[in-house]
């Protein structure tokens, strides 16, 4: 098999994507994260999870708009990075912040919609991460696999809602995320409508 074009691309994005985690670790060990370290780690891992979720959702629109195919080869890795940061975000909350007090965590998830939507978003990402291998695509069959992976749209919307509800007063940043997500989903919607028209036109009897 021929070596893929841009063999440096995946490892570079992986290294770059994990660099904030390394920085967080170094700064944490050097005591440079300020008076409330847990808050900083929570905010940073949550932000990174959302960023990677949106970037992974940008791969298809980039192909549709510019006919680029290289983002598609990154998509799986970007999605897995989003999942990794989301898991770290949840573990920081559950283990470090709440000290694994299961009663309190359960109460948070069931009584506070802000935490509930974040938790549901994470739960939706679990089956996607588990079926991210090529073997899973084969086992499920591509149409089923694809339908399952559309859950990422729901997860992304819930993730952005979680961010909007988290903010106390200034909604600028979460609304930027919401606008980017709306754009990315909008491009898909337009494409879906076009495709349906095309197939209808093709199947219409002469």
């Amino acid at each position, binding site marked *: 098999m021929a070596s893929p074009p*841009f*063999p*440096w*691309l995946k*490892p*570079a*994005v992986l*290294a*770059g*994507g994990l*660099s*904030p985690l390394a*920085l967080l670790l170094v700064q944490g060990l050097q005591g*440079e*994260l*300020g*008076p*409330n370290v*847990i*808050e*900083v780690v929570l*905010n*940073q891992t949550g*932000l*990174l999870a959302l*960023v990677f979720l949106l970037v992974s959702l940008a791969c298809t629109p980039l192909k549709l708009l510019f006919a680029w195919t290289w983002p598609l080869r990154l998509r799986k890795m970007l999605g897995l990075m989003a999942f990794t940061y989301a898991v770290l975000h949840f573990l920081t909350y559950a283990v*470090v*912040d*709440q*000290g694994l007090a299961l009663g*309190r965590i359960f*109460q*948070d998830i069931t*009584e*506070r919609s*802000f*935490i509930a939507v974040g938790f549901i978003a994470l739960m939706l990402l679990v089956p996607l991460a588990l079926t991210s291998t090529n073997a899973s695509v084969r086992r499920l069959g591509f149409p089923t696999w694809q339908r399952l992976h559309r859950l990422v749209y729901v997860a992304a919307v819930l993730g952005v809602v979680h961010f909007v*509800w*988290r903010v*106390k*007063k*200034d909604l600028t940043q979460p609304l930027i995320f919401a606008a980017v997500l709306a754009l990315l989903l909008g491009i898909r919607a337009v494409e879906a409508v076009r495709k349906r028209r095309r197939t209808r036109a093709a199947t219409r009897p002469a």
Partner: protein
Amino acid sequence: MSDKKAPQPPESEVTPETLYRRRREFIKNAGLFLGTAAVVSGGLYLLSPKRTRPGETPPPSGSEGNQGAAEPPAAEAQAAPKSLGPYDTDEAQTPYKDVTSYNNFYEFGLDKGDPAQNAHTLKPRPWTVVVDGEVNKPQTVDIDQLTSWFPPEERIYRMRCVEAWSMVIPWLGIPLGELIKRVEPTSRAKYVAFTTLEDPEQMPGQKRRVLDWPYVEGLRLDEALHPLALLATGLYGKALPPQNGAPLRLVVPWKYGFKGIKSIVRITLTERQPPTTWNLAASNEYGFYANVNPAVDHPRWSQATERRIGEFRRRPTLPFNGYAEQVASLYAGLDLRENY
């Protein structure tokens, strides 16, 4: 002829062409790898919120009355055991660095590191405070005159933020009740309203209408007369730094921190409950009373526990922030679930 004399490298040092090409390929790929990785990490770095390191905090302006506010207190001052007053806590005090670099003061930015970074534009001298409304002796008093009437005393209080973090702070201040008694409230006075300075030049955060400026807070008159209620002029034995509300701020330790209005320019006694800033901004989240109450959750998080800044584990939050014995009687007959 001359090239025959040129020294030839031994056969073992000659790179075969395929390897030579692969090496060029490798170097090119390595360069692209590093470049792409740098772009990705740079992009993520730009997206991440920036934190101020304590050492980068610019010193407050050297204006009078504010000198030395940036320096931590002398070690001996901290070490000297002081006899505790009736309301003082003997719990470990939050480091000066954390008290002055981590707080909310939206007039200087929305991040908790922003006040320390930006509040140097505030000029705490000269400063006058207007005391008026339902009083027999309305006053416009200079801050230094005020502190000559009531020499500041030290109070070591717990401070509980509505965001579920807490500190222990040794304040310097004057009892609010003493000032109110001095201006003689009329029989119509039921509430006390406080107002923060409004000056976007000194308070650059006011250039954005994040909140309805100027910041207003209020207390019921009996709460304001309670001996725990303090008008702070300093902390850790020093003048109050601008980021902590120089030159005069309210401290009501049994209430959430946002009641502790900073940089006060006006104290008005009123007949009606004053409209207060956070209550206007989100009345379902921030009540007028805002008594620390582990049984009444914020809509988005539990208030049952809190993190003391500098500690790893959460601790249970106490009713009235541990001052129930002193203040619970103020609220006899009042439903604190309704009046949160």
